[in-house]
């Protein structure tokens, strides 16, 4: 006799009962949470390793890293990262929160590169939030 002879998931009938569906879906949810949870744990570990490595390398290395932008601006960007950083910096300064001065450069990235699914929504948002 095999250890796990069968599972509901693999023998789900074409029209399952609600109870079977519930069990099947909760199993699926467990699969998703376990998979992304494992990833979260691994990525957290990864972050700690990199933080440790960074510390050893000292402040020189960190400075160099900050100086180099991760990507050159994609062609066709309307707002250059530099301009955006300046704007964000100004906003942050006005609010007296210096944390944003650094983050702002990174903020420019996804907003410009994830335009793919965003193009259609631009105009709707244009008036409602800082771009």
């Amino acid at each position, binding site marked *: 006799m095999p250890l796990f002879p069968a599972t509901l*998931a693999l023998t*789900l*009938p*074409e*029209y*399952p009962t*609600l109870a079977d*569906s*519930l069990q*099947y*879906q*909760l199993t*699926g*949810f467990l*699969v*998703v*949470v*376990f*998979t*992304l*949870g*494992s*990833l*979260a*744990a*691994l*990525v*957290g570990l*990864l*972050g700690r390793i*990199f*933080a440790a490595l960074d510390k050893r390398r000292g402040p020189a290395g960190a400075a160099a890293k*900050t100086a180099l932008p*991760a*990507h050159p601006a*994609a062609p066709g960007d309307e707002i250059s990262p530099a301009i955006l950083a300046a704007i964000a910096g100004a906003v942050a300064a006005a*609010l007296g*929160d210096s944390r*944003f001065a*650094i*983050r702002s450069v*990174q*903020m420019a*990235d*996804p*907003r410009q*590169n*994830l335009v*793919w*699914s*965003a*193009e*259609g*929504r*631009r*105009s*709707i*948002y244009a008036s*409602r*939030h800082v771009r």
Partner: protein
Amino acid sequence: MERRGATQHLRLAPRPVTILLDILHDFVAFFQLTAFSSVTWQMATMWVVCGVLFYLGVHKKFEPLLLVPIAFGALLANLPTEGMITSRVLADGLVETGVLTVHGTPLDTGGFRIDHITGGLYDFLYQGIKLEIFPPLIFLGIGALTDFGPLIANPRTLLLGAAAQLGVLATFLGAGLLGFNAQQSASIGIIGGADGPTAIFLTSKLAPELLGAVAVAAYTYMALVPLIQPPIMRALTTAKERKIRMQSLRQVSRLEKLVFALLVTVTVILLVPAAAPLIGMLMLGNFLRECGVTERLLKASQTEIINVVTIFLGTSVGITMAGENFLRPQTLLIIALGIVAFGLGTAGGVLAAKLLNLFSRRNPINPLIGSAGVSAVPMAARVSQVEGQKADPANFLLMHAMGPNVAGVIGTAVIAGYYIATLGK
């Protein structure tokens, strides 16, 4: 001249008149045989549906890159075209599109010489969906366009992306109650994942007869995220929660991003192998993006591949929307279930954030970013930002919300893999 019946009685008329009548007869017969007669009420109704989709795509700007090609494909599917698409009515009255027939000659030397392949233009182009080639290629481009930095900087947000899949799961139950079978229920549930390519990938595998309805619902609701989500977000959060300021995100190095891409590839494929085509291509595109030494390939992924494939993907989805398939009560149910899926996904993400806050009091998550876990990149993240600023104008949640936002892409691919592994034939 026995074949020209209409002119039989006019033998005595002078020749030019005969010819004119012959031509007129042929003219009418041509149109009678080839055209208007084959217009059905389903076709005419679908023209109205196409009009609505064009309105949403062009005027309302609902995901126009997809809705415009889908609507145009649907228009072509509901005209009596020739040489465009070959359909086949199945036993259950549904129409199967993309039918190819090979004509050939077996050779004495053992092979089979292909003499001709019968099929219209979209019988060939549609293979990109039928053979599940287009969605992974779109994911290659999406990976090349996505920055996973905010996710890497705050890996807890992966759990928000997982929780937002609750909408997918709950909708499966609802669809089952409404009479859909398991394959169809999974395809309908995945609308809640707010990931077009994943929805198309899963549906073309499990329930191709629902492809049009699922794709249209998915892309329409993705565009409606700014209307659907805010009320749910506000209902499930307190004013105090909405004002939570999150710790600033650390800078993530290039190497860390590269390791992340490989880690996701390996982990997800090991756990859910059926998610491989989506996750593998997503992370290939992302690796090309982050490695910094393959600019040419990155640009090809971000522009040429994704743009060209999107035209063919969109129109191919549309071409499946023959009236016989689309004009069924099912379609309305799918659209109704789709919005439920979106709402539940939003709720799942927000509640998961509140749950996580029970365990980490020192570094709390603003639950408004939980809703971004449904994907709909980057719209859902912007909704988080806007709602956050309504509570506290100085609170910048956008980058924090990008974490669950891109995590939702991975989460939906994982649940799709689960469905394929268990329900795929």
